[in-house]
């Protein structure tokens, strides 16, 4: 399968594609995102159970994409494809400029060799071919289990005071390193609210107010958009359960608007659209 992937990328690069965002090796031999530019670069591609990176992140990297007019290729897993659909829905990237190479996936593992939580419940291991230009790899065998939202439910079972204590303790761990924000493909604002100086909406330091605002505002900005790739939590040096917060926001949008981000590339995001049957705030049940 890797050979097929390499050959396909080789062909793309020999054609009119400027570069391909793919999985390769870092200089110290670890699996890492790479930008393959010459056909020979395809020899260095990898595919293994450490390819957890969501490469769509680079589709919103201005240093990488330049003016966004070049034709480029990208390797995506089924979960990454959902993020790509959100980027297309939000008009951040042009489909006609992309050669989308999807890979079928048996799941990714963390540093200790355990299957990632998101992979246990994954229903897109076999990517939808209508969203890609090529699908590579054997049909996945593993049956996903249902997402029980246990982590979200545990917090929902807490009283408001308990929840405040819980999240305050979590956000106190935050260093404001911005790794979660910077690895998120959907955090692509030219000027992040948290970086703005004038006015300074969110304190720059790791103060209690600053940390809470940063995470809560980010959760709201990703509500109805986050496709749960889980990269934010993977990279957090403090181990903050960011995906729990994101999945909570996602479940609210799903329940209230019946909307699942990333299902197709031409969705109308609910928070920027109006429909006559939008839920009445009076009728929406408080959590």
């Amino acid at each position, binding site marked *: 399968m890797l050979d097929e992937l390499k050959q396909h990328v080789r062909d793309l690069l020999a054609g009119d594609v400027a570069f391909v965002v793919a999985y390769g090796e870092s200089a110290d031999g*670890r699996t890492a995102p790479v930008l393959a530019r010459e056909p020979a670069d395809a020899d260095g591609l990898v595919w293994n159970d450490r390819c957890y990176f969501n490469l769509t992140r680079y589709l919103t990297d201005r240093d990488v994409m330049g003016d966004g007019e070049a034709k480029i290729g990208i390797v995506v897993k089924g979960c990454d494809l959902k993020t790509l659909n959100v980027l297309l829905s939000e008009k951040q990237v042009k489909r006609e400029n992309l050669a989308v190479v999807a890979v079928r996936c048996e799941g990714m593992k963390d540093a200790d060799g355990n299957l990632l939580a998101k992979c246990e419940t994954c229903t897109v291991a076999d990517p939808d071919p209508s969203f890609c230009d090529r699908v590579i790899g054997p049909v996945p065998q593993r049956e996903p289990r249902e997402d029980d939202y246990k982590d979200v439910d545990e917090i929902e079972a807490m009283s408001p005071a308990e929840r405040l204590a819980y999240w305050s303790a979590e956000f106190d761990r935050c260093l404001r390193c911005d790794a979660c924000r910077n690895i998120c493909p959907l955090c692509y604002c030219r000027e992040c609210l948290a970086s703005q100086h004038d006015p300074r909406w969110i304190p720059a330091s790791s103060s209690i107010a600053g940390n809470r605002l940063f995470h809560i505002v980010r959760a709201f900005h990703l509500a109805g958009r986050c496709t749960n790739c889980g990269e934010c939590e993977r990279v957090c040096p403090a181990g903050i359960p960011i995906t729990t917060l994101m999945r909570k926001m996602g479940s609210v949008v799903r329940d209230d608007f019946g909307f699942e981000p990333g299902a197709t590339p031409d969705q109308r995001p609910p928070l920027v659209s109006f429909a006559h049957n939008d839920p009445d705030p009076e009728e929406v049940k408080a959590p």
Partner: protein
Amino acid sequence: MIAKRDQLGAQIAELLETMEIVAPVRERGRVYFRAVRSPDDIAWDYGTSVNSIKEFFLPPRQVLFCYTSGGFKPVSAVPEKPRVIFLARPCDARALNIMDKVFLGDRPDETYAALREHATIVGLACDRPDQHCFCTSVGGSPAGTEGMDAILIPTGDGSYDVKILSDKGRAIFPDVPGDDSTVPDEFVQKAEAAIRRHITVPDNIRDSFASDYWREVSETCLKCGLCSHLCPTCHCFDIVEEGDCRVRCWDYCQSDTFTRIAAGHDHRAEKFSRCRNRVYHKFDYYPENFGVVACVGCGRCARHCPVNNGIADLVNGVDAR
């Protein structure tokens, strides 16, 4: 003098009555340096910690002064209790001496100086580097004692050979005879041989400043601040207003706003120039200004980089160009 863990633990428990003890603890499957309440919290057999001990000398957030009706009232950040940093690795201890060059230089920072003064560093010699550690390539050693007041050398069976290195160390371990403060050669050789990662800092690194190399190696960098925040020698900071006070807080040179002036201009607007500047700051400018590389080879940047880049790689490849 050989001491068992429970003996050292009892010593820690006694010190806790009058001092703050910072030691490695296990949290969420990883190890962090935190203030502990009991010797039972200590992760004695840790390999590497996520955070370094930098934050106990350069606080991530520090109030500098508060506004009053007539002026500016300085706020003291001098700790109430003296502190022991327990089980610091040689790389992290050495990093403090490197940071001292800036903060205890021609304009000594009062808070940093007080925190250094009030802290005793008890080191733990390192017999378990991982694949990212490269201290021996940058003037350090897993058996190094630079920056420490005492060192514990693991004997392999839950005991430690305790060596005193300074008066402060003696005050923590008054019963330890203080004549011999050297780490045994056998341990040193074994420990240094266990280091798997080596880098070469080219002498002529400045010649490569204008090379395209920097554009290539920075392509996948996310410009997040993780490497800087975890690095024990990165010390760049921001100064901001927060309510009625002015605060100093950690900052990182990869940030979009680090060098951007109010009028909007930024001479390091391009990602590669920030990446290049960080490497040069550590491996060229700091040595020129202070005589030492601003890197201790702890490996945190490579170990924790969200996209598996590593600063060691960046320097290693320069020579080839």
